[in-house]
């Protein structure tokens, strides 16, 4: 890689009790890339997201963001540096209406600093962002309480919450899970547009087909270890990966 990585993870390890959730995982993310992270259930994908975004502190190893060691930082400090994440379990601010959900990130120090107080009408900005992630502007949807929205909208809202921060890296924790095929296909252009805008994406995913189509590089986790890394094609033809997903071949 010619460019220096925007996000670098070195020898990250985390134990929960006696269980190795993550073991010596290292990889790097170049700016503007989409990195896919796949792995069977329980392979430590979500733990990895929690470790990088600062919600869980690693037992060993470090995370570098734009060359700065962010391992020990609090999650909100990390977010203010420009690295944010979505959550796998969708829990929006359910008592608030959809556009008010975005008021929260729009009040973060990062947004206030970058807009230098020239944000204008904050509600209008929130509605604009909702439109960007695919909420119909004229309809009532943005004014409905988030708790009453269907899952497809919630995923978009979650992405909108990240975009409002104007981040440099978004870690998407299973944005496709639970969505129908048509909902996924309508979400993909949004992700591609984000990448065009220069946002680096790290996608944790179960849906391999869509992920392989989107991502530049893929990292495969199994039982907390990195077992393969490479372009989607390389990974797809990797023997260890097949074994991890389908089990070892046994001769009868």
């Amino acid at each position, binding site marked *: 890689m010619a460019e220096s990585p925007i996000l670098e993870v070195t020898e990250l390890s985390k134990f929960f009790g006696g269980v190795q959730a993550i073991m010596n995982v290292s990889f790097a993310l170049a700016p503007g890339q989409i990195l896919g992270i796949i792995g069977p259930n*329980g392979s*430590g994908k*979500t733990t990895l997201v*929690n470790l990088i975004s600062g919600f*869980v502190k690693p037992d060993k190893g470090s995370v570098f963001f734009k060359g700065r060691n962010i391992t020990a930082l609090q999650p909100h400090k990390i977010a203010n540096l420009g690295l944010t994440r979505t*959550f796998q*379990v969708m829990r929006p601010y359910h008592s608030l209406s959809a556009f008010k959900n975005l008021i929260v990130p729009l009040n973060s120090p990062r947004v206030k600093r970058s807009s230098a107080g020239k944000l204008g009408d904050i509600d209008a900005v929130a509605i604009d962002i909702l439109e960007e992630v695919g909420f119909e502007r004229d309809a009532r949807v943005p004014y409905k309480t988030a708790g009453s929205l269907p899952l497809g909208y919630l995923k978009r809202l979650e992405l909108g919450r990240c975009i409002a921060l104007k981040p440099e890296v978004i870690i998407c924790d299973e944005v496709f899970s639970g969505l129908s095929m048509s909902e996924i296909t309508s979400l993909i252009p949004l992700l591609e547009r984000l990448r065009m805008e220069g946002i680096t994406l790290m996608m944790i995913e179960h849906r391999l087909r869509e992920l392989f189509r989107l991502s530049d590089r893929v990292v495969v986790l199994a039982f907390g270890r990195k077992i393969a890394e490479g372009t989607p094609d390389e990974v797809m033809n990797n023997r260890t990966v097949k074994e991890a997903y389908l089990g070892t071949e046994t001769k009868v």
Partner: protein
Amino acid sequence: MTLEYRSDGVSAISILHHSTLQEPDFYSMEILIYGTVNSIIFALIALGFTLVYGVSRVPNFAHGSIYVLVGFLTWSFVNNSGFPYALAVIFSLVVAAILGFLIYRIVLIRLRGMATSEIIASFAVSLIILEGLRMQGIAGFKGFIGPFYTLKPFIEGKINLLGVFVDYQRLIIIGVGVGMVILLSLFTHHTKTGLSLRAIAQDEQAAMMLGVNSDRMAEIAMSIGSALAGLAAVLILPLGSITAEVGYRVLIYALAVCIIGGLGSWGGAILAAFVIGFAMKISTALFGALWESVVLVGTIILILLFKPSGLLGKQKELEERV
């Protein structure tokens, strides 16, 4: 004000009081013995609370009121109804168990899952019991007011233990306290009901799928927990007098032990009981009885600052799991 604090008690902890010995030679021995007694008193007080919370996640704020109620019931059975002491104790414990069951069945069952509502409702129950005991003039009821209500020790007298005088009641407390812990651990590890209780405590949904009725288990836990509160009462109350204020204090001690040990953790509760018991005993010996409560508060604040989930407690950092 309705809930006056007792202004006569110099120390907040009259139930732990005893005559201190002045001979310096036996000082450390005294701390050891009385520290152990105090610790086991704390453990007994907290055991019922932590059992109920551990199994059904119900913070039973009526714990202290059941403790006091059992004291008064036993007193009434002995002095008004003329029952033999042992029978009175057994009757009171049965009443406590039934009461625990009813509190869950009538009130708490409708508030399951809303922890703060459970706290508020069970504390309201507690106030009803405690203030009800103090109520005067309704239907000729005189109310239990003043320091006139005391229970007899099981066995009167003292014994010289390694140079320290200890009354038999305190030895009984140690014996029964240790016995209860052993009995409970046998119960939870080797009986069907006990194993179901543990199953519910570990993973409610999985246990329910395997046919364990979570409400039934919570009822059983509330009954056992209330009976344990009652047992603690009949053991400990002979050391002091029975008043409604004791109920608030017992609740606070139970909460303090559980917060320090980690909510719902048995081992934590026993460990915390010993930490507080000895910390308070040592501070009393060094600075005087007044400092007991300050030490208690200090211990809690230290725990909150350095290990908010308690000594052995596990508080999930994140809702999401791997």
